[in-house]
């Protein structure tokens, strides 16, 4: 079942807070309507609750786990892959067409290159998607556990390696490196001209 936008917003809150007030807040959002202003207000309030929980944990009032993507690693990896896919396809097709001599693909690439040159910010989106995909794929691998006992405070970083997330992350790095290398190779002769 696809979570509603309201449910996604409620996930921004600390779990304990959400379990206590989540249903009531969801009902209120349903009553007022979920406008951008309401979404911003709820997101800001959720950030405040997160900050309060963190302050409480560090002051000895409890524990706090920061790992918003920890519970659904596959979904985050697939979202990263979806964001990476257009750039990945472009890079693969470019290499095949222009580096490996698959000339049959050149007619396919020409309209794509023309479109990229004509649409503002399309190239920026193309370059920005691999780092964004890397962040999304890597987010579920980290969890921060803040605790404070009677005598000491601790912050434990929990790092795990999940095959799908690591694979997508590495793919994003490779695509990013190839793309940046390509851009630099293209720009150097132009600078020298």
């Amino acid at each position, binding site marked *: 079942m696809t979570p509603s936008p309201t449910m996604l917003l409620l996930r921004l809150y600390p779990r304990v*807070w959400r379990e*206590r*007030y989540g*249903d*009531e*807040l*969801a*009902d*209120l*959002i349903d*009553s*007022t309507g979920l406008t951008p*202003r*309401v979404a*911003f*207000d*709820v*997101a*800001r*309030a*959720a950030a*405040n*609750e997160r900050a309060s929980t963190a302050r409480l944990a560090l002051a000895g009032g409890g524990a706090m786990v920061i790992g918003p993507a920890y519970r659904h690693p596959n979904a985050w990896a697939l979202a990263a892959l979806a964001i990476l896919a257009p750039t990945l396809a472009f890079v693969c097709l470019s290499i095949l067409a222009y580096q490996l001599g698959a000339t049959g693909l050149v007619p396919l690439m020409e309209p794509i290159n023309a479109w990229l040159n004509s649409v503002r910010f399309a190239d920026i989106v193309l370059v920005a998607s691999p780092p964004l995909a890397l962040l999304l794929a890597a987010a579920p691998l980290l969890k921060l556990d803040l605790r404070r006992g009677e005598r000491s405070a601790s912050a434990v970083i929990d790092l795990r390696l999940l095959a799908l997330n690591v694979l997508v992350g590495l793919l994003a790095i490779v695509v990013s490196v190839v793309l940046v290398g390509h851009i630099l190779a293209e720009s150097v002769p132009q600078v020298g001209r």
Partner: protein
Amino acid sequence: MTDSQQPTDPALLLMISLAAGPKHGHAMLLDVERFAGVRLGPGTLYGALSRLEQGGQVEPLPNEGRRRPYRLTESGRLALEQRLGNLQRAVSTGIARVGA
């Protein structure tokens, strides 16, 4: 009157609203808008409400479907009287000083 001229402390507004009797979130939101001209966002409202509950100034009543009414506790009523008294003194002093 612009927003910056309105009393906008959400906790104070909620306590004033609940002083008239128990209400659930949406009823509080409408009431505050009516008497103060301030439209609280749902996140702001529940942020203030949760802190008031943790402070023992309001308490929840049994659910009515998905909605849960809240009421002012005795200590909440005392805290509200004290805050309104302080505000009234500040307002009276301010009015006297500007010669209104």
